């Protein structure tokens, strides 16, 4: 198992390098010019110098190499410095001072390091997306379990219909629909997510809750629809197995049979599906963040794309790819750990 995990981890490095190369080459074809906003009175040789200062004058491969060095060498140094200096967890260690003022990945929009902006945006995304995923899983599992246990009952039929609907209605329709119903007609929740809101007492906590409920629910609907179908199918596979009949025959109560014996066995594939869905929900959050004006990383990607901010787009897309590769790895390893029948070597 350990050798398998290490082999997969090593194999993911060339995968990530290849993906980053593809994204970089795609962005090299971009028609936009970062100097388009500079006034025409600026002489061409000065423009050329500005271009070189942004790192655009070099050949593509040199640019790619520099980006790699910045992301994989300079940014970790900055991160370790931050860990040993300011973080709560490792702040007691002596300050490492690894970062000596080398050039980091700079955004063309703000002229500040891309990673700093990303770190500012991640908490909002994590709060909304992460919470919605947890809520979605918590709703989906009981629905899946019960509709499998009472297959073809009214609850099962209704559950299947609701999951089909949740599967089919895109978030860019449910989002505005919820806004029209709950913030325009009923006036219960605000339609715009206020990121500057600080939670310090009960009132502000309630406000935070009310502004999070709609984006979380929109994202959770998608998660629930997918997961409850998996959960149902997996439970159905297990409910007809011989060991279930044995468990009933030896007089175990129905609750123990279903909730312990069957559930534990059916959770194996579902857990891997849960792990596989984490990066996908980051991608899907781009639309939801756009609808509810949450300024997370999805919204950052959209604005960077429209502003032709290539370093930002490159780094963000790479972060998404990194998440996908890592969670694929985690899902595969979890599958092997949870199911002793599966041996990779």
């Amino acid at each position, binding site marked *: 198992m350990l050798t398998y995990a290490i082999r997969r981890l090593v194999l993911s490095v060339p*995968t990530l390098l*290849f*993906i980053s190369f*593809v*994204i970089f080459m*795609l*962005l090299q*074809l*971009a*028609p936009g010019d970062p100097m388009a906003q500079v006034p025409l009175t600026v002489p061409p040789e000065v423009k050329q110098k500005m271009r070189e200062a942004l790192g655009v004058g070099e050949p593509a491969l040199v640019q790619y190499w520099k980006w790699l060095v910045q992301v994989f060498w300079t940014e970790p140094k900055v991160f370790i410095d931050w860990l040993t200096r300011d973080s709560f967890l490792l702040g007691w260690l002596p300050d490492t001072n690894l970062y000596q003022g080398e050039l980091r990945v700079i955004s063309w929009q703000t002229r500040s390091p891309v990673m700093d902006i990303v770190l500012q945006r991640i908490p909002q995304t994590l709060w909304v997306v992460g919470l919605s995923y947890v809520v979605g899983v918590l709703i989906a599992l009981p629905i899946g379990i019960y509709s499998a246990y009472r297959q073809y009952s009214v609850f099962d039929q209704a559950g299947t219909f609701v999951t*089909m*609907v949740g*599967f*089919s*209605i*895109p978030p*860019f*329709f449910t989002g*505005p*629909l919820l*806004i*029209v119903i709950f913030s*325009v007609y009923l006036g219960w929740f605000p339609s715009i997510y206020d990121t500057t809101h600080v939670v310090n007492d009960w009132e502000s906590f309630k406000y935070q809750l009310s502004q999070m409920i709609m984006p979380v629910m929109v994202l959770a609907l998608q998660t629930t629809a997918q997961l409850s179908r998996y959960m149902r199918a997996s439970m159905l596979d297990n409910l007809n197995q011989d060991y279930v009949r044995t468990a009933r025959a030896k007089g175990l109560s129905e609750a123990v049979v279903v909730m312990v014996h069957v559930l534990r066995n059916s959770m194996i594939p579902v857990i891997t599906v849960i792990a596989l869905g984490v*990066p996908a929900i980051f*991608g*899907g959050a*781009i*639309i939801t963040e*756009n*609808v509810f004006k949450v300024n997370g990383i999805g919204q950052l*990607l*959209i604005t960077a*794309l*429209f502003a032709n901010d290539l370093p930002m*787009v490159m780094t*963000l*897309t790479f972060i*998404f*790819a990194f*998440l*996908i*590769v890592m969670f*694929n790895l985690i899902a595969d390893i979890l599958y092997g750990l949870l199911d002793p029948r599966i041996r990779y070597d």
Partner: protein
Amino acid sequence: MTDSPQDDVILAEGAKAAPIEALKDKGPMAPPRSKWRDVWEQFRKHKGAMMGAFFLFFITFGVLIGPYLWTLDPQALDIRNKDMRPIYTAIWNSEADVGWNHPLGSDQLGRDNLSQLIAGGRASMAVGWAAMLLSLIIGTGVGVMAGFFKKLDGPLMRLTDLFLSLPILPLLLVAVTLFRQPLRANFGPEGGMFILIVTVVGITSWMPTARIVRGDVLALKEREFVLAARSIGTQPFKIIKRHLLPNVLSPIMVSATLGLATAIITESALSFLGVGFPSDFPTWGKMLADAVARMEDFPERVLLPGVAISLTVLGVNYLGDGLRDALDPRIRGR
């Protein structure tokens, strides 16, 4: 039966008893039924799938012949009749600005909602069908190649894994914003965008089909009929065409329905984010995006395209569900 001599012997021993019940031939059996008729019988039992199929055909024919029935130009500006409400608003609000010249109302520039909806449906369905076909062709090709030729299996499956780990939506956004200009210059604003979206959606959604087809081909090529075909000297491509492809048709059809649903949703999502078709060209996603700013006063402009997208995708998903049940021989006949 009783004419044959062996039977006479048995009968003699059994003291002229009637032949064994199970061996009696009671008239001719029902003629053998074709597989597709069985599939159709099973499919008809799935109510949701029938409704989904019916709705999909309704929408497809609606957007195909709709422009000939409702001849108003979707892009014609009729500024005097702007911001009209749908005709049914008059039921609860007698002061609403309604009229039979615009049965579903008009938008802020006076463009007719009904003809926009039809034209938008045309664009969405065209993109959906074309992208689905493209991804099916790529997916089936890669899957069959990887399953049939051992040498290609490794590289092609690594390629599939690589494509599966690409962040699809961000890459779609990047590709569409980057290649918009050159394609528009070559194929015109609408044609260029159509080609771009179909290609990009097709290239990024073939992987599940490829994996399923590869698995099936791997199992099929060990079967006796393929061995027989090979032993009489059939060329590999003939084997694929005559023996393998007809047998992997069912999983391909099921993934086709899923592909159609994803393609429609992806196109609408791109239009919603403002990177899809040009601004004067109506699609369902674009209508929805334009209407979000005014949804307090004109909720129907969000609801109409949104419901159209959702119902189409719901119908396609139910169709896929029914097809999966009907094409699975283990479920069929129960």
